[in-house]
């Protein structure tokens, strides 16, 4: 908290006073000044990275390696316990289900978001009347605050009074306990998350489609290729670089989805929709007595997972740049 408030407050001061002591350095000019300049220019961004990325990350790792109780949290004398918190997390009965849910949630969301996004992108690429308007409408889920869309979903999926069950009831389907039955809760949050993720895929894939030369389609049409054939032989292969980036970014985003699940089900009932993201929050903030250590440990596992895929992303990007 104090970082964000104090840094911008103090930074301007030396900027002004810095105009004063400019004379002494001039006398000490050396050939190394060029290197000094380089470092000086690097300093702001380095500091920014250190302050807002490296330090919090270090703190999080430190939190996960100490045995924090509320008392030692306040007094800052928590004993170092090594990987004890990680062992607690691995041995927790919640670990296996949370891992499974995280994998299922991420994989299913990604596949559906990508397929639906791609289908819509190809559809809107026809440039029919009103296509721009409709495309804009598809962005609505993306523009809404997550708390609004998640609350709306949880109302719609309410067992007793939700509109979804009312519709199902009208066609003779029994009440489905979308959010309150262990067998449906994960499905419900996945559906909501797919809805939220489609616009992102649509936008990126649609802009990718703009770079596919129209001449190729004309040539293929002249050669007698049908629409399906043109999609598989032209659109899809030429879209591959964009697809890879969309999927990888989507993966990192989906891995850390928290708000939707927390608002809709709180990870329950009985951990049936708990992922690493909600579990970490539950441990750190969901109880009257917070378990900071294990909470940080779960958070770090998520960071590692995201990092692995981030590295994959960098590699893929480099490969693309070379080819």
């Amino acid at each position, binding site marked *: *908290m104090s970082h964000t408030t104090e840094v911008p407050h103090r930074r301007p001061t030396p900027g002004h006073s810095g105009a004063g002591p400019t004379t002494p350095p001039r006398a000490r000019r050396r050939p190394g000044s060029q290197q000094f300049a380089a470092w000086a220019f690097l300093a702001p961004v380095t500091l920014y990275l250190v302050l807002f990325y490296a330090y919090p990350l270090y703190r999080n790792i430190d939190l996960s390696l100490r045995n924090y109780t509320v008392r030692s949290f306040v007094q800052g004398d928590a004993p170092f316990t090594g990987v004890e918190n990680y062992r607690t997390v691995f041995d927790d009965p919640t670990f296996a289900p949370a891992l499974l849910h995280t994998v299922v949630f991420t994989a299913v969301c990604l596949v559906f978001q990508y397929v639906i996004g791609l289908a819509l992108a190809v559809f809107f690429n026809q440039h029919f009347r009103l296509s721009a308007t409709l495309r804009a409408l598809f962005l609505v889920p993306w523009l809404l605050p997550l708390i609004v869309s998640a609350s709306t979903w949880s109302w719609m999926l309410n067992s007793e009074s939700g509109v979804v069950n009312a519709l199902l009831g009208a066609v003779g389907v029994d009440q489905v*306990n979308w959010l*309150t*039955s262990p067998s449906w809760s994960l499905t419900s949050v996945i559906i909501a998350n797919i809805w939220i993720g489609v616009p992102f895929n649509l936008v990126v894939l649609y802009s990718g489609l703009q770079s596919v030369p129209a001449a190729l389609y004309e040539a293929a049409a002249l050669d007698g290729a049908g629409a399906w054939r043109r999609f598989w032989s032209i659109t899809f292969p030429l879209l591959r670089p964009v697809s890879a980036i969309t999927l990888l970014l989507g993966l990192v985003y989906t891995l850390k989805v928290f708000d939707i699940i927390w608002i809709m089900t709180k990870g*329950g009932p009985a951990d049936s929709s708990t992922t690493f993201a909600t579990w970490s929050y539950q441990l750190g903030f969901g109880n009257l007595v917070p378990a900071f250590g294990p909470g940080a440990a779960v958070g770090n596992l998520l960071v590692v997972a995201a990092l692995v895929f981030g590295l994959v992303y960098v590699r893929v990007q480099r490969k693309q740049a070379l080819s």
Partner: protein
Amino acid sequence: MNSSSRQRRLTAAALTALAVATTATACGSGSGGSGANAADSGTYTIWDPYPQFDKGSAWAKLLDSCGTEAGVKIKRTAFDTSDLSNKALLAAQQDNSADVLIVDNPVVSTLAEAGVLTTTDDNKLDTSKVDPNLLAAGQSDAKTYGTPIGANTLALYYNKEVLKEAGVDIASVKDWKSLTAALQKVKKAGKKGVTFSAIGTEEGSFQFLPWFWGSGAKLTELDSAQGVSALSLWKDWLDKGYAPNSVINNTQTTSWQEFASGDYAFAENGTWQLANAEKAGFDYGVLPIPGADGGNASAPTGGEFVTVPVQGDTGRYATSQKLVTCLTSTDNLYDTDTTLSYVAPTSEVQDKQVAANAELKPWVDAVKAAKGRTSDELGTKYPKISEQMWKAVQSALSGSTSPKDALSAAQSAVK
């Protein structure tokens, strides 16, 4: 010329960088020390969990007038209840605590354990008038860490019209058996039975406790036969359709909304809904939650404690004590608890409340019978037990395990 201006920019950049780095180190060591209180010794900070009251509200005005009385300026910050305990811990870590902190009562023992709060020995607060069962929530190891500003608890609201239609005489509802029989009649009449909140948070435990205690079970043994009977009661209601399946995800607010629709015969809810009950548009009554074999079950006490966090400058306690005493003086308690729709923590003010509004009588009785969640020397053990308890309730009600297995798993997880 050209090079000198470049040099100047460089120096400026380097100095900026240096200054930023220094600031960073200062922050990193956590000894900022400025902020909430050091800014001006004539300004006292108060943190409360009442974001619903804005600057113009009676509550904010009361704080200001108490400040004026003590000769200091008040800086008030309102937090969401669920945020406040973490904010208070973080502030204490930065040695930046508020002068007066108003927190939900089960949090008091946690903050006390963390060494964040002063005892009444240090801050000289007078708690002699407060009802002992309410004060107990703020006590551990024979020390008292604050004084309640007001209390609330749970009872059953009932819809007189629905009960009449179903032919239920409310006087017949005396224990679990007769309550279940009433629910059965209501269901037969085509109406809905009872709604409550069994969400997977502290709220869920809070709502389950009257039934748990009403069965004779103790928090130190979650999986006793009595405990299982309480959870089975809820589970049975869900299975038979006396209670909606949505209770598993209901907060107390959404549960109230269900009751306010007018379809439900009963709703378990708190004192704070009284004002809304008047607006519901149907005739309602209030019934203490019955115990398993009759009598009234103890419900858990809700409501906040006014505490004085530990300060580096112990000279501030004297003024903080004046502020708290002002806030909890008989006249001010009456006004505050009326605004909050709470029952006052002292008999004196309770009598005044009942004299002004006879409908508060069952609530005052319920509060007198109520029990603090952290009482019985549970203290900081309570949050762990509570978490396992709401998990067990969720597992059983959603059908993933039986009540017995759910509570045995909960009990072994607490150990």
